[in-house]
């Protein structure tokens, strides 16, 4: 299925995807404890910059939103805001078991359990916490998806905005956020 998609790309799309793949600006937002492995991933032994991965300070410039671990409901609100401020094409990497099914926080009243109900996730990296090798392998997975043109979850988010909004509003009781019209 994926190979079909690759053949369908026009030459412009192919070049665009190729450049996107080799230049991933990662949002510098340490949402959870996984943020501790990001410095290690960026520095000498693991050096993610050789894959073109580097940090971006603001959502406007970022391509990848790395959710480093559990999301408290208070953070979820900010994460949604950050995600909506990012410019297309944008990707989300869920980092750690707690983004997948809650992990060890499954019974906590303040952390969400499944990240992809609230924002679309392209790649999950499991483990608590994932080693830098796993993080890089997650990024490589994302690069593969981008090259194949299958990393288009941001478009799905817009299509199914109502479903996502309903899920989000179920948790965030006081919804005081500007509505973005893309």
């Amino acid at each position: 299925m994926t190979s079909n998609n690759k053949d369908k790309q026009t030459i412009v799309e192919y070049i665009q995807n190729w450049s996107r793949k080799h230049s991933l600006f990662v949002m510098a937002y340490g949402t959870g404890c996984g943020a501790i492995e990001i410095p290690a991933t960026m520095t000498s032994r693991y050096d993610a910059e050789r894959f073109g991965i580097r940090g971006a300070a603001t959502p406007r410039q970022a391509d990848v939103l790395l959710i480093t671990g559990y999301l408290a409901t208070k953070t979820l609100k900010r994460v949604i805001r950050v995600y909506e401020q990012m410019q297309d094409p944008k990707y989300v990497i869920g980092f750690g078991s707690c983004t997948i099914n809650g992990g060890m926080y499954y019974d906590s009243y303040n952390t969400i359990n499944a990240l992809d109900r609230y924002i679309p996730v392209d790649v999950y990296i499991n483990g608590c916490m994932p080693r830098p090798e796993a993080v890089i392998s997650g990024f490589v997975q994302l690069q593969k998806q981008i090259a194949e043109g299958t990393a288009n979850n941001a478009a799905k988010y817009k299509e199914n905005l109502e479903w996502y909004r309903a899920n989000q509003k179920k948790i965030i009781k006081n919804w005081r956020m500007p509505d973005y019209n893309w």
Partner: protein
Amino acid sequence: MVREKETTLYLGPQHPGITGNMMIKLKVTGDTVVRAETHVGYLHRAFEKLIERRNWLQTFTILCRFCVPEPDPMELTYARAVEELENREVPERAEYIRTIVMELARLQSFMLWYAGQSGSAGLYLTGQWSVGDRNYILDLFEELTGGRIYHMYIWPGGVRRDLPKGWKDKALKTMDYIEKRLDEYNKIMFDNTIFQKRAQGVGIVPKDKAIEWGVVGAPLRGTGIKHDVRIDEPYCAYDKLDFIVPTQEGGDVWARALVRQEEARQSINIIRQALEKMPEGEFYNKVPNPMKWTVPAGEAWTKTESVRGEVGFYVVSDGSNKPRRVHVKGAAYTNGITVLEKILPGQNIADVSFILNSMGVCPPEMER
């Protein structure tokens, strides 16, 4: 008096300069901070609630996540509290291994601090080097405990397993390497005039108020007050080891940096001594089946020195197989909220992140 126009500047939660996931609301006139308000809760995971639902041993998976940069003091403090409740003996070898683990944890946290302190001032070289070299310490941890970041290695009654074969030599070798590298970081960071200019006279904690404000750890020692849990109420094998607790006068970022620089050296010194003096013998005083393990009713308050300051655990047991209450007082709980709100006004915006790093603000242990 003409009131200048105030701008509200949100430092965080998404901001490269914030140490973790928290927010500081700054009121600014010009370049000067007028008022600072810390907002926490972005990492609130209800740990203390979850612990009420876990049994005494399951709690360890939660404990180490209280503060991510330095998880081991949490395990140790809790283990000591449980030992105090149970009157459980700890073999001497385990005490030495615990000391080594604690100091390794401190050392790797110091190396992260090097990165934070210099990185927030725009000097990325030290940070890149030290975080890269930190991996060697994490390798030691991995061989010893099986985990890079979270170890769950210290248990009530000792440690989970003995030192692996050849670990001692590897550790000594790593210490030699790290000691050599620390010199290089210090040359780049502390001998740098610009860093000195940035750090001196910034973020001053007054000496006469420091203890009353609840300042602990390196910020307190930076004001010239010699307070360290390791000498005030010795635990593990610290009373059998010979080390210096450095103090500096001034209470500014520079003094705190000097204190931490010397402490990193002392950590290496302690690890070497402990490795040498460690006796042979048992490493673990076995606990009963964790599912049925009950701890006698009572309460305990134990303190441990971490990089950021003292970590206190208030543990209450009602005699069942689950803790009644585990309340954590992390160093950042006072250093990072009230003290920060007191010392930030009057500072330049450029120094806010710099001061945050030197105070050791660690959000996960504030809101838990």
